[in-house]
């Protein structure tokens, strides 16, 4: 089962039997998202000059075919929406059954039912008036970076937006409701800090084994829901800091999750230049700070939203940083091994 590493300068495929890196694909081109689903491998490119592209391989990356990238419809002439209706980035790709989902900047959710050959904008979410109030977090325009599909009922879809809270559909994407109750943004004016539509969730994951449990690394801290995102509670035990981007949840144990805490948002670096991973095994009541094998001096590695992944066993983890560090763990994070310190900036790591 390979590990996919999407970087600023190409897609790297790691053979997890020997932990060896193979020849990169799309060398020189930014790969913003990668997905292995139903026998195919999908890579989203963000070509600096020539736009966003989507490629599919049927043979594990040997050959690639260009697919139609998601496209926004024309903006109505009388629209007051300030957001450009143009695809700027595919931020995440997910698959469930015969459906692929793409979360994009500037905030559109797209769906494909023909293995990425064609895409349609999910209008039920895009046409919500609240959507025009979303704003960019890290990019000029808002974007959907997390798409969680209920493992036993694919009609239940939850997405997280930077910055636009959490949105949930129970009918396969036709209708949507805000699902960020309990989140807070202390950096906002007091009367708006609990507004669900302004919450800056950096990354959201759903427990495969207990789908009512979600974890979110938010700009303002870590939040957890145990009621299907109907409400969220802040996880105050997170250490050594509450800021960060990435999170991953154990595939079989909803109480186990990992985070990569960083210095608060003015700096966005590992605290005291020591790279650590925080793990809870009791649903966020307490955390262990894991650092064995990780650089503990002069480490300026930031781990982005999709830079942390766990495999189907829950024992293997991968982590990639903005300064091209790639680490793996085979003991659920107790210890880490560096596979490379010299890769291009890493956007996403993902086990097949």
């Amino acid at each position, binding site marked *: 089962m390979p590990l996919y590493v999407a970087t600023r300068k190409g897609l790297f495929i790691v053979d997890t039997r020997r932990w060896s890196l193979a020849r990169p694909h799309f060398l020189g*081109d930014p790969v913003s998202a990668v997905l292995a689903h139903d026998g195919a491998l999908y890579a989203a490119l963000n*070509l*600096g*000059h*020539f*736009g966003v*592209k989507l490629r599919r391989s049927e043979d594990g990356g040997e050959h690639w075919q*260009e697919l139609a*990238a998601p*496209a*926004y419809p*024309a*903006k109505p002439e009388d629209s007051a929406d300030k957001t450009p*209706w*143009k*695809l700027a980035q595919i931020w995440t790709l997910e698959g469930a059954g015969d459906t692929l989902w793409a979360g994009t900047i500037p905030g559109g959710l797209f769906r494909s039912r023909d293995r990425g050959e064609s895409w349609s904008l999910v209008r039920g979410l895009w046409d919500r008036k609240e959507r025009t109030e979303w704003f960019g977090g890290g990019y000029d325009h808002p974007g959907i970076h997390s798409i969680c599909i209920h493992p036993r009922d694919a009609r239940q879809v939850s997405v997280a937006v930077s910055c636009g809270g959490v949105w949930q559909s129970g009918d396969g994407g036709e209708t949507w409701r805000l699902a960020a109750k309990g989140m807070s943004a202390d950096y906002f004016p007091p009367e708006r800090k609990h507004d669900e539509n302004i919450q800056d969730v950096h990354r959201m994951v759903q427990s495969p084994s207990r789908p009512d449990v979600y974890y979110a690394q938010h700009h303002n801290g870590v939040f957890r829901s145990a009621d299907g995102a109907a409400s969220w509670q802040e996880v105050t035990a997170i250490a050594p800091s509450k800021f960060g981007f990435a999170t991953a949840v154990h595939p079989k144990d909803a109480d186990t999750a990992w985070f990569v805490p960083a210095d608060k948002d003015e700096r966005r670096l590992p605290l005291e230049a020591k790279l650590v991973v925080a793990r809870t095994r009791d649903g966020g009541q307490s955390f262990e700070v894991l650092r064995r094998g990780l650089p503990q001096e002069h480490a300026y590695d930031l781990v982005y939203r999709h830079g942390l992944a766990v495999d189907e066993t829950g024992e293997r983890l991968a982590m990639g940083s903005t300064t091209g560090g790639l680490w793996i763990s085979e003991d659920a994070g107790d210890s880490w091994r560096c596979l490379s310190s010299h890769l291009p900036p890493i956007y996403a790591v993902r086990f097949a």
Partner: protein
Amino acid sequence: MPRVVFTSHLQRHVSAADCKVSATTVAAALEAVFRSQPQARGYVLDEQGELRKHVFLFVDGRRAALTDPVRAESAIHVLQALTGG
């Protein structure tokens, strides 16, 4: 007939052959090219039909816009900007 010339950088991603087309504006010339080479359209124009932010057009050595006129002997160069890479 105006001649359309694509940057070699584009060839790394998609096939786009230089060609002569019958047109009186840059936009019409590109449309004619994309009719026979539809795979190149999305690399030069975005989904709203506008020139991509980091693609430059030159007509006879001068920066040009899609709406600019071209002459029968014009050369239209489609280049990548020195930004956005």
